[in-house]
């Protein structure tokens, strides 16, 4: 009996199916927001307000011809997009969407490190996907992905440690369940984290791997059909994962005012609402800035964000040791 519940949790809610539809929904929200800000019009045919359009696009791409150019590294070219997608979904499963992680209710201590590592591996797989495609634009695009995430992973990890220090635990479940969310105790880290996340997700102003005027399609240049569909989906899941990470680490996860007996319903709703807020902030930043040059992106990381992250961590440790702990705030 207990096994059936686990299978339901993995496959339907809050596991694979839910994550898939949440991803498509977030994609729709992003499109809507961008269209509103930029005064554009888009397709409104699939579903009310075009809500099914991302799904329609995904299905359409699945039906398209799948071309493998000569000279590609076949195994990597074929499997990298799908493996990257799977790893992102797997990493998502550790985040407490309905108050508990999908696999086991409390996760395990140190799972924060594991899911960050998963995100890095997925990024690395995307790099390999572009690298294997035997196209100069794919190669340059994926080299840019690699340069960028190698640089920005360091401040991201350092900033992710801020809430961990505040709570005194590396368990995602415990961080999300903290009485005082990190955004109140360390708001500067939240701001820095959002900026670093823009770079990790390759969104403006850090979207140099997707600069059409320089690298055309970037790592996606040679991809078609189902593989392209999975590449797109991976990127969308990355956006959702990044936002869910912010919700978990800084915004108190699925916590919120509860009504007794309705926790099972309210917790996912709180989580999704918070997630949408992060998605909106991220998309807003994307629309109101121009793309930086690749060297400016890298200088921005090593000269500004990395020192800022280190200082942020030092301030956090100092605060925890001398202010928060004596006053019993946080833990």
């Amino acid at each position, binding site marked *: 009996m207990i096994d059936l519940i686990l299978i339901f949790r993995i496959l339907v809610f809050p596991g694979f199916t839910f994550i898939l539809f949440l991803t498509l929904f977030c994609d729709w929200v992003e499109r809507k927001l961008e269209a509103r*800000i*930029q*005064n*554009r019009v888009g397709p409104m045919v699939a579903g009310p307000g075009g809500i099914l359009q991302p799904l329609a696009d995904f299905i359409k791409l699945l039906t398209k011809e799948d071309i493998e150019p000569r000279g590609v590294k076949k195994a990597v070219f074929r499997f990298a997009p799908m493996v990257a997608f799977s790893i992102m979904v797997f990493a998502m499963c550790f985040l407490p969407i309905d108050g508990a992680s999908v696999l086991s209710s409390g996760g395990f201590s140190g799972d924060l490190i594991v899911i960050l590592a998963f995100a890095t591996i997925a990024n690395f797989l995307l790099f390999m996907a572009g690298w294997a495609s035997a196209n100069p*634009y794919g190669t340059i695009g994926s080299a840019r992905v690699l340069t960028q995430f190698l640089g920005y992973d360091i401040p991201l990890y350092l900033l992710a440690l801020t809430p961990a220090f505040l709570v005194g635990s590396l368990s995602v479940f415990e961080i999300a369940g903290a009485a005082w969310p990190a955004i109140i105790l360390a708001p500067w880290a939240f701001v820095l984290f959002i900026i670093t996340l823009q770079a990790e997700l390759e969104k*403006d*102003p850090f*979207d140099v791997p997707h*600069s*059409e*005027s*320089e690298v*055309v399609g970037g790592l996606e240049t040679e991809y078609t059909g189902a593989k392209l569909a999975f590449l797109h989906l991976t990127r969308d899941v990355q956006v959702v994962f990044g936002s869910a990470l912010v919700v978990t680490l800084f915004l108190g996860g699925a916590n919120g005012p509860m009504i007794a007996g309705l926790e099972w319903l309210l917790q996912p709703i709180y989580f999704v609402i918070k997630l949408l807020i992060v998605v909106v902030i991220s998309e807003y930043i994307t*629309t*109101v*800035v*121009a*793309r*930086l*040059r*690749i*060297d*400016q992106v890298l200088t921005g990381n090593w000269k500004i964000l990395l020192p800022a992250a280190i200082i942020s961590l030092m301030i956090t440790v100092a605060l925890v040791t001398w202010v928060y702990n004596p006053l019993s705030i946080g833990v």
Partner: protein
Amino acid sequence: MASNIDMISLLQSKFGEKIQIQPGVSGTASIVANNGLHHDVLAEMIAADEKTGIVAMTGLDFGQTLGVYYHVRTAKPFFTIKAEVPKADPKIRSVVDIHPGARFHELEVTDLFGVVFVGNEYDGHFVLSENWPDGVYPLRKDVDPTKVKLVPTPEREANLPAEGRQVKIIIGPQHPALLEPEKFSVTVDGETVTKVEPRIGYVHRGIEKSTESRTYLQDIYLVERVCGICNPAHAYGFVGAVEKILKPDVPERARYLRVIALELNRLHSHLLVLGHAGLEIGYETVFQYFWRDREPIMDLIELTSGNRVYGSLITVGGVRRDITAEQIPKIKSVLNDLRGKIPFYRKIYLDEPTIRLRMKEVGILSREDALKLSVVGPIARGSGVDIDVRKDIPYEAYGEIPFKEIVYPDGDVWARMNVRMDEVEESLNILDYALDHLPSGPIRVDVARSVPVGEAVCSLEAPRGELFYFVKSNGTDMPERVKIRTPTFANIPSFLKTAIGESIADIPSNFVSLDPCFSCTDR
């Protein structure tokens, strides 16, 4: 600053009988300077006036001899230096040593007429296609382009390592980042550009040759097709030159209507490039906003000329369509809407931090280089050179309309874009003034189909810079020679100069700041 009379008397005192001065022909005066004297005359003019620059060069076929005309701009007056070389041995001294801006003009004459400029040789074709046979010069009168036998196309140039750390990268002619076919061979040392070599002519349509076998009336529609975006400017350039020979009495109202057509054109062209620059630097919101606001201007062009793009409004002797009294309030309300949005856009281009990061200190062209390379339009004005044909040689009603000449001293991409931004506002002022002061009366006069023997130049400020037309007539209803020099052709040297020493990632934003139009350049 040398004035009109000064320059002529200066040259007369210096060269005496060796040159002949024909006042009033092709500009303020034509200076016939054969036997290599054209070089010394130009040197003298550059020494007398720092704004001296070569606007264009025309090659001509006189039967036994080939003519080489240097069309020279000075601070105010406009001169043509004429030289002739025998067809059998067409060698002439190049002027690139005193004026580097002449380089591409001379190469074009070499390609199309076979004149060899000693001191400015080029390997292969510059505007003609790779499979065009050597020794056949299409614009000579004795060449029938339909009977030319093409040679096999040579092999494609590959990306080759040059010397040491330097690598040669070929961008184009087909490249997803380029909107039009052109080729740049970029030599890079790591990320730094050390050399850029252009190759144009991939869509050379031979429009100059085609005009010679069509009537003047047909030619107006043909030259409009040189460029889709600035087609009224091309129509006016041709019509203006023809009218200088024909001397019809163009009605006052037509002169104002022409200004309205030309300014609406500038407005939509500037909005286009301001948005496109946003797209090149990944600022999609700017792109969407500018192109959204460009749409009502396109509607105005349709309202006033009957067509969104090719209005064919300007014709010899006037314009073909009037603006009625009922249309004026509608036009003004659209213009006022746009005016209300200008402060916001101005703020974006002046102060937005990411725009400043991508555009400030990028592609710097100093004032000295701008003069030496004789660049035109917003590029020159962005480098602190105050040349604007509308002010310098006022044509049509521009002399009566008050407006500011926009000059930024910085010389970078940011300055060029802001020149355009400010010119959008000035265009709105000009349009408002022209609509308020529209004289009454007829809109065109009838003119003869045949044009008497003569020659004339017409230069005007197109959105991308000074556009130049030279028309030579032979008494029939078809022109003897039409020369078109588009602004982008004059501005390519500035890109070659500014790209050097900068990152290869700066090329897109630097390039788009020229507002390049290669299909017009190829003609």
